[in-house]
């Protein structure tokens, strides 16, 4: 039952989120703030080599160091793990081989961090260095010992939906482009930290700054060989995640093991330098896109290839690989589609999910490609997009089911707001406007490990005095998930936000939520919260209706009252209703669960990409370029986001603005780059990301499409708005200077190089030759047959 917006009293309002005051006043306890009696400190010895065999680890001098209580090596934690069931390739402490500078080798627990650090220096490791693989080209060349197994190829994908070759042959216009997107890291303000404690009865508790406490729980059970019931994982508020805290990290397993070995609480906080090496951030991706068009600009077919530089381990890489090809067809109506991808192991910190997971790179490729095509076809870039919009309530050629689409309205907002069409052709020297659009998922439709159970669960318990206890496994990583849960429950029950007591992300107390990743929490935990709240509300209405001698359908819950809709004086306090229900049959509780609909298509690999709903964004970016220094400034950005429904518009705007900011960093300066295996600048001073001074004026437009699958119609906000900004910057630079920088980040030296080059371009010439496996020819959905 969909309620019209004007009946809502909390949903849709820009209220202050429950954790705001404790955050801004410094009272929030992050993992590193925890201090337990008798706590000791762990530190990890990491590989100084990008690729080496470990011949010997001698810890005797470290063990003898005063103040040292335990030393661990790979022998103490031999069981492999990994976030994906198909990639169980990591060891908490490497035993035989190290695969990137920073790979953990041994660990020490000592009475303070300095002593632990000194002890690390006393561990003698003998290495046999191996030639490192530092790039996609080297990985393909395959000289030297493979990083894992028999080849540096980690994962390949080769899918075809309809005959793309034929469709390209028949196209009026075909264009091919190659682009490169450099890797970057998440750069959360809070470094990763974990505290482990073992109770007298042997039960282990781990507090950790994690986006995925449930997956950490599973990995601890596996690696420590303990039943999960003997382990409790509590996720502490994350001081920023962005995907960087959604993996299983060595320090979490090591802290737990050190606590088990010493019997004392152990804290490990990574240094900023370690965070750069722990990484799991944006994959560097080399891409080729080839698209056919009719004369009128409509797409006939697309072939997309991506080459991912994965780093030393699998991490989320298999999913990342699929994501580089998944969302092309949800953004544009593409009748025939071929997607080939390969992920390589290299001797660099492992890549994984960063805001937009695997989709900003192809988005950059696609949106700069379309900008070039628009020019060739003599169609304006906005119109070219309009001619290729997907249809709501449809299936893409690669079987993704789309519900609501607010893309056209997003386009209208930014184009009008910025005056794009008129101003673009008359910009002053060095100024330019660029346009791009995008699409993202509202939660992955499949779980990370195969199971039939819900992805999110919420439990409610009502107090006699009208308070509501809300339990959910979701962890607030700053995005405001606590607020969303409370707002939805408060809305349904007609109470206020302050009445909701939240207990979250504690595996002993809270039901499952899979984690704060893939923009899933508002959508999935929100749906679960709504279902739970409706259940208890219905129970209260039942008893209240009896007492008021009316039909339950006549009742509404508002302003802490349960009243008859048409005779509001006729009713009772919310607390009274709870008391009636409790008197009748005991404690009033309710649970809600959300399982996404089964959406996978009939082909292998169809599990990555389906989502119950997709968000859409459009952006116009204005640049101000210095043609002599090559510097690019961004004075103004217009961005519109199809949020479905903004449960809290202020929080949505915060996510959109944060995405714009992060995108500008990736577009113009951030890069995770290496020299001799070492990160070039693992510090906040030298790893350049924008400051407040670089942050532009942002005009944010929220477009509401009230999606039928989302809670109150909501879709996602945390990742999608990042996507269009990066290509829009590149397109704006072309508009300003007439140069194409087909390579992210767009640094001043690249701009100058392009201006001085006859091609007026910097970027890869092509992609390397690589034998993809034979294409799997998937069936296309009926609606695309014969098109």
């Amino acid at each position: 039952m969909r309620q019209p917006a004007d009946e809502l009293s909390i949903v849709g309002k820009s209220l202050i989120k429950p954790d705001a005051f404790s955050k801004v006043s410094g009272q929030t306890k992050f993992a590193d703030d925890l201090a337990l009696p008798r706590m000791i400190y762990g530190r990890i010895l990491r590989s100084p080599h990008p690729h080496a065999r470990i011949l010997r680890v001698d810890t005797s001098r470290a063990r003898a160091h005063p103040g040292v209580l335990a030393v661990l090596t790979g022998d103490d934690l031999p069981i492999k793990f990994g976030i994906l069931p198909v990639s169980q390739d990591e060891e908490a402490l490497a035993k035989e081989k190290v695969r990137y500078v920073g790979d953990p080798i041994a660990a020490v627990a000592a009475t303070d961090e300095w002593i632990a650090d000194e002890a690390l220096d006393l561990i003698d490791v003998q290495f046999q260095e191996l030639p490192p693989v530092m790039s996609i080209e080297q990985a393909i060349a395959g000289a030297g010992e493979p990083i894992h197994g028999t080849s540096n190829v980690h994962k390949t994908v080769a899918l075809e939906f309809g005959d793309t070759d034929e469709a390209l042959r028949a196209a009026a216009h075909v264009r091919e482009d190659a682009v490169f997107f450099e890797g970057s890291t998440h750069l959360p303000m809070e470094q990763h930290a974990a505290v482990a404690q073992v109770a007298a009865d042997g039960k282990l508790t781990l507090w950790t700054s994690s986006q995925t406490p449930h997956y950490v729980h599973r990995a601890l059970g596996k690696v420590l060989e303990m039943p999960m019931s003997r382990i409790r994982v509590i996720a502490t508020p994350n001081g920023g995640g962005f995907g960087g805290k959604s993996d299983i990290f060595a320090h979490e397993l090591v802290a737990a093991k050190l606590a088990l070995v010493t019997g004392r609480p152990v804290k490990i906080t990574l240094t900023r330098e370690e965070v750069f090496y722990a990484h799991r951030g944006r994959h560097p991706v080399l891409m080729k896109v080839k698209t056919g068009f009719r004369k009128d600009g409509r797409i006939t077919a697309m072939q997309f290839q991506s080459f991912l530089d994965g780093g030393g381990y699998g991490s989320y890489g298999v999913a990342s690989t699929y994501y580089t090809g998944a969302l092309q067809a949800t953004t544009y109506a593409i009748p025939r589609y071929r997607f080939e991808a390969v992920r390589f192991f290299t001797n660099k910190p492992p890549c994984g999910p960063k805001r937009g997971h695997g989709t900003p790179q192809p988005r950059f490729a696609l949106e700069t490609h379309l900008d070039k095509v628009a020019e060739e076809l003599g169609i304006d870039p906005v119109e070219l997009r309009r001619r290729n919009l997907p249809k709501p309530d449809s299936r893409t050629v690669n079987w993704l089911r789309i519900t609501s689409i607010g893309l056209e309205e997003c386009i209208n907002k930014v184009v009008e707001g910025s005056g794009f069409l008129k101003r673009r052709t008359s910009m002053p020297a060095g100024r330019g406007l660029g346009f791009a659009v995008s699409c993202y998922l509202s939660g992955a439709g499949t779980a990370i490990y195969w199971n039939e159970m819900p992805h999110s669960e919420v439990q409610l318990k009502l107090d006699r005095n009208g308070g509501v206890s809300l339990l959910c496994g979701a962890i607030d990583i700053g995005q405001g998930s606590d607020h969303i849960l409370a707002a939805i429950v408060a809305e349904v029950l007609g109470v206020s936000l302050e009445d909701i007591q939240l207990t979250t992300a504690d595996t002993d107390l809270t039901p499952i939520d899979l984690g704060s990743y893939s923009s899933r929490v508002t959508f999935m935990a929100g749906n679960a919260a709504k279902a739970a709240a409706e259940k208890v509300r219905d129970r209260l209405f039942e008893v209240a209706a009896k007492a008021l001698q009316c039909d339950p359908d006549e009742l509404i819950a508002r302003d802490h009252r349960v009243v008859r809709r048409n005779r509001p004086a006729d009713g009772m306090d919310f607390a009274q209703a709870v008391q009636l229900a409790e008197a009748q049959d005991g404690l009033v509780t309710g649970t809600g669960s959300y399982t996404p609909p089964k959406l996978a298509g009939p082909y292998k690999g169809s599990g990555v990409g389906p989502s119950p709903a997709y968000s859409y964004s459009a952006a116009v970016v204005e640049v101000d370029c210095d043609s002599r220094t090559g510097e690019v400034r961004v004075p103004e950005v217009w961005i519109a986001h199809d949020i479905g429904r903004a449960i809290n518009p202020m929080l949505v705007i915060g996510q959109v603005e944060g995405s714009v900011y992060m995108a500008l960093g990736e577009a113009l300066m951030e890069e995770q780059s290496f020299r001799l295996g070492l990160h070039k600048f693992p510090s906040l001073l030298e790893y350049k990301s924008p400051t407040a001074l670089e942050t532009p004026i942002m005009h944010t437009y929220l477009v509401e499409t009230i999606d039928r699958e989302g809670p109150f119609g909501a879709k996602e906000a945390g990742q999608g708005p990042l996507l269009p900004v990066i290509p829009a910057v590149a397109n704006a630079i072309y508009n300003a200077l007439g140069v194409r920088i087909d390579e992210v980040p767009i640094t001043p030296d690249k701009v100058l190089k392009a201006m001085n080059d006859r091609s007026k371009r910097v970027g890869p010439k092509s992609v390397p030759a690589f034998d993809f496996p034979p294409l799997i020819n998937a069936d296309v959905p009926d609606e695309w047959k014969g098109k």
Partner: protein
Amino acid sequence: MEVLLPHSLEEALAIKGERPEATPIAGGTDLMVDLNFGRLRPAAMIDLSRVAELASWQQEDGHVFLGAGLTYATIVKEMPEFKPLVQASRSVGSPQIRNRGTVGGNLGTASPAGDALPVLAAYDADVVLRSRARGERSLAWHAFLTGPKKTAIAPDELIIGTRWRRLRGPGSFSKIGTRNAMVISVAGLCLVVDEENGAVKVALGSVGPTILRATEAEQQIAAAMTSSGAWQDSSITITEQVIDEFGSLVAAAAKPLDDVRGTAAYRRHGCRVLARRALIWALNERRLPAWL
């Protein structure tokens, strides 16, 4: 580690005389980084932040004296008429760094990327050193800065400050970096015009082992201004060709290296652009009416 807390310059010099191995610490914005990364483990440190004599500046008989303990924030607040110095100070780090960091520390570190240093070099400043045993001495900036992170200071000396002859004429400091704050220069340049002596001085930072002066460029532009009569008549235009040549000579004076912050080629190019701009600003400023 011992931390010694002198309350006067005399006390500080006495400590330094007795304990020459003790490391002075002013704002700590360079030293604490080294301590945190374990690159430095001094047995003792002398905290200069309580030494009031170091934290002042004066003007006397046409000279300016800037105490070693003056922070960038104080310079920005109290010395607006020294525009290039203020511009350099404002470009250092972030508000927190500017509240702590001092020019004495910038000299003590002697990094080629120290942003105050090209300004001191363009002013032809002397560095004033003092020890208890031998008293005070002054070294020209280039005699003090002997190499990357190397200075001519003696173990028992402290930097008292820096002194230069006050110049009449426009000038500026500008730098290139990836962002507008918290950025170590990829290239930095200070240009000052000395109207009395008919000279233009250009110093470069971050593009060589130490701060560099572009002397050929200085002579070229001064000569061009002399021959065109621009020194007397500021409305006379300096040709585009002269400005270009000036830019090329400044770029040629740079001795840049590739590093993580930028390539040598981009740095050299940056010097050319900064030089042209700084010169054009200065020439335009010379044309402004005196009452402005």
